C-alpha cells in the first residue's frame, strides 16, 4: 500500500479529537493484507474497472488500518463494513451487530481512496474526493449559490470542484446522498482549508479540505453536542475571497 496518510479530526469548540480521516492508494489490488476480508476481495474481482477495484479495496483497507492505529479496532478482522440503503457505510467493531458502531464514510476517485470515521456517537462524518476538472463547473447550477464563499481559488475549475467536493461530503455526513438540494448547503471558508456548512436552518457543520496534485479531498463533521450548532457569522467578514458569481461568472 502506498500514499497512506491520515489526519486527526477536531471539533472547533475545544479542539478535541473525535475521529480521523485519510487517503490511500493501493499499488495493486492484491495489496491490503490483513486489512481486507475474503468476501471483499471476491466482490472487487467482479469489477471490470481496475482502478475502481483498487479504490474500493483501498478505502476499506485504509479505514481498518486507521481504526487499528487509533486503537478503536485493534483487530482489523473484527471490523465489519457494510452500507445502509442510502449508501452510508456502517462500521461495526467486533463483527456484524457487534458492541460498537462508529460512523464512517468512504470516497474514491481516479484510483485514490478516501476514508473517515468518528467514534464520538454524537458526531456524523462525510468524505469526498474529486479530480479538478471542468465537470463541476459545467453543472454548477445544480449546487452552487451566491452565498458560497471560498478564500482563494486558482481557477473556476478548482473553485467549483472544491465547492462540489465540500457539499458532497456534507451530504454524506447527513446520510442524504442525492436526497438533498445542494444549493441549500452554504459553504463558507473561514481559514485556509477550513470551512463551515450551513443554511436553511440546518445544523452547522465543520469541514476541512485539501488541494493536492490536481485532486480535492473534503471531510465534514456534524455534531449536535460539541458547539457546532451555532452559526458563526464572523466567517462572512473575511478578507478577499471568491464568491462564484463575482470572480468566475458562474452559478
Amino acid at each position: 500500500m502506498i500514499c497512506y496518510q491520515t489526519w486527526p479530526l477536531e471539533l472547533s469548540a475545544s479542539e478535541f479529537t473525535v475521529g480521523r480521516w485519510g487517503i490511500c492508494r493501493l499499488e495493486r489490488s492484491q495489496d491490503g493484507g490483513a486489512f481486507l476480508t475474503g468476501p471483499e476481495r471476491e466482490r472487487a474481482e467482479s469489477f471490470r474497472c481496475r482502478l475502481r477495484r483498487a479504490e474500493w479495496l483501498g478505502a476499506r483497507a485504509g479505514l481498518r488500518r486507521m481504526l487499528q492505529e487509533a486503537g478503536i479496532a485493534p483487530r482489523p478482522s473484527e471490523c465489519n463494513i457494510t452500507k445502509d440503503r442510502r449508501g452510508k457505510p456502517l462500521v461495526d467493531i467486533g463483527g456484524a451487530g457487534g458492541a460498537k458502531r462508529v460512523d464512517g464514510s468512504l470516497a474514491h476517485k481516479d484510483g485514490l481512496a478516501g476514508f473517515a470515521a468518528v467514534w464520538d456517537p454524537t458526531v456524523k462524518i462525510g468524505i469526498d474526493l474529486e479530480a479538478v476538472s471542468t465537470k463541476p463547473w459545467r453543472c454548477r447550477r445544480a449546487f452552487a449559490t451566491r452565498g458560497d464563499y471560498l478564500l482563494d481559488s486558482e481557477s473556476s475549475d478548482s473553485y467549483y470542484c472544491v465547492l462540489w467536493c465540500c457539499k458532497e461530503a456534507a451530504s454524506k455526513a447527513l446520510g442524504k446522498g442525492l436526497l438533498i438540494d445542494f444549493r441549500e448547503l452554504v459553504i463558507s471558508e473561514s481559514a485556509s482549508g477550513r470551512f463551515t456548512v450551513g443554511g436553511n436552518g440546518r445544523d452547522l457543520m465543520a469541514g476541512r479540505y485539501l488541494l493536492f496534485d490536481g485532486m480535492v479531498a473534503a471531510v465534514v463533521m456534524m455534531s449536535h453536542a460539541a458547539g457546532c450548532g451555532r452559526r458563526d457569522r464572523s466567517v462572512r467578514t473575511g478578507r478577499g475571497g471568491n464568491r462564484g458569481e463575482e470572480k468566475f461568472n458562474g452559478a
Partner: protein
Amino acid sequence: MARKLTEDDKQRIFEEIREYLADELEIDKEEITRDTHIIDDLGGDSIIFLEMIEEFKEKYQINIEVRAIGQYMLKNPVYTVGETVNAIFDIIERGDELLAGLGDDQ
C-alpha cells in the same frame, strides 16, 4: 414538460447516454451495454450522474430538482446503464409527476 417517448426516442437516448459515458470515462462505446455497472465497471461517480441529469434536464426542458431525482433513485436504484436509461425515460416522460405514488422519504 412531460412527454411520451417513442421507441425511436428511447433508442436515441440510450445511444446518447452510451456516447456520453464513453466520452467522459474514455471507454470504447461498444464496451458499454445495458448491464454495465457505471461505477464498478466504468469507474464513474456522482458528478457523472449529476452532469448527465443536468444535460437531459436542459435538453428536454424538464423542471425537476436533483433532490426529487434522488428520491426517485432511492425507490428505483440506479447502478447500471440500463437502470440509468430507464430512469432518464421516466424523468422525461413523467417530469414533475415523477414522485407521484412514491411517498415521502426524506
